[in-house]
């Protein structure tokens, strides 16, 4: 500041109660004689007061409901998908028929409860490396699904 540059950041530290005892005593001795520091201190105090007076930004009414929905998704990391991949390898062939039937049902219902992420992972070829030896019908069904999910806005 003009007029006095003995104290810079110390002004703030004084206001915030963060000065060590020695510096604080030095500053307090200087303050009554220095109009510049007194004014700077006063302005900082009123600035903080102004910030404290700002109306708080309130969470929107849906905030809580949205959060618990997100929690529910996060807590069950992939839902049906996790159980799916947890099936033992040999189970895949048997699961194939069920899958085809399930996909047909899904395609007909276009279940809106499945999130975009679910579909993206279903359509993700890497996720299905396990299936290299699997039932060709199953793979065909997945192709159908992939083509379908690519063509939809999901």
């Amino acid at each position, binding site marked *: *500041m*003009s*007029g006095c540059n003995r104290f*810079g*950041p110390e*002004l*703030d*530290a004084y206001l*915030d*109660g*963060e000065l060590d005892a020695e510096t604080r005593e030095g500053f307090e001795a200087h303050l009554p004689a220095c109009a*510049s520091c007194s*004014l*700077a201190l006063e*302005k*900082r105090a*009123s*600035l*903080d*007061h*102004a*910030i*404290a*007076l*700002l*109306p*708080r*930004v*309130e*969470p*929107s009414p849906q*905030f*809580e409901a*949205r*959060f618990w929905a*997100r*929690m529910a998704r*996060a807590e069950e990391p992939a839902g049906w998908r996790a159980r799916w991949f947890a099936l033992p390898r040999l189970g895949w062939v048997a699961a194939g028929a069920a899958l085809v039937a399930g996909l047909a049902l899904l395609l007909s219902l276009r279940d809106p409860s499945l999130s975009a992420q679910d579909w993206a992972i279903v359509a993700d070829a890497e996720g299905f490396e396990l299936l290299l030896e699997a039932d060709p019908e199953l793979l065909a069904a997945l192709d159908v699904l992939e083509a379908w999910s690519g063509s939809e806005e999901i």
Partner: protein
Amino acid sequence: MIDDDARLMLRVRGGDRRAFEALFRRYTPPLVNFLARMLPERDRAEELAQEVFLRVYQARDRYEPRARFSTWLFSIASNLALNELGRSYRKRETPLEESVLDRLEDPQPGGEEHLEAKRAVSAVEQALASLPDRQRAALLLRAERGLGYAEIGEVLGASPSSVKSLIHRARENLLKLLGEREP
């Protein structure tokens, strides 16, 4: 020393869902407010606030009450906000013409004074928004949350002396932006 929040968080670690709900309710307002002041978009601020609580919950098994719970919570929030801001380009500073600090006191509902007070509030909000991100974070943690320099340092990953400097520059910049130039 373990504060009340840390005690709740230890219960969360032990699997107590109600303790988590209590922390969530207690900290939603200050967290949303802080992130809304840090980020330009309100919706994004709310998403990040949710992200903070989600991370707290996911990290519950590893929780140790080393620092105050709120320090930990605001560290996660600051990190997320500063990362987010680092990715988007910086807003331009728009200095405000006139001094507004005097007009902030005691807004009267209705009439000219009320309008003036509203303008003053909006000027302070704008000036805050145009501060460099870390300065804004440090000053908000000081002026709104009442944290000390050491704690702000923990939140922002900075030494107490860097915090002192951040806060000094934040106030200098704000006073300039608000037209309260040094005599």
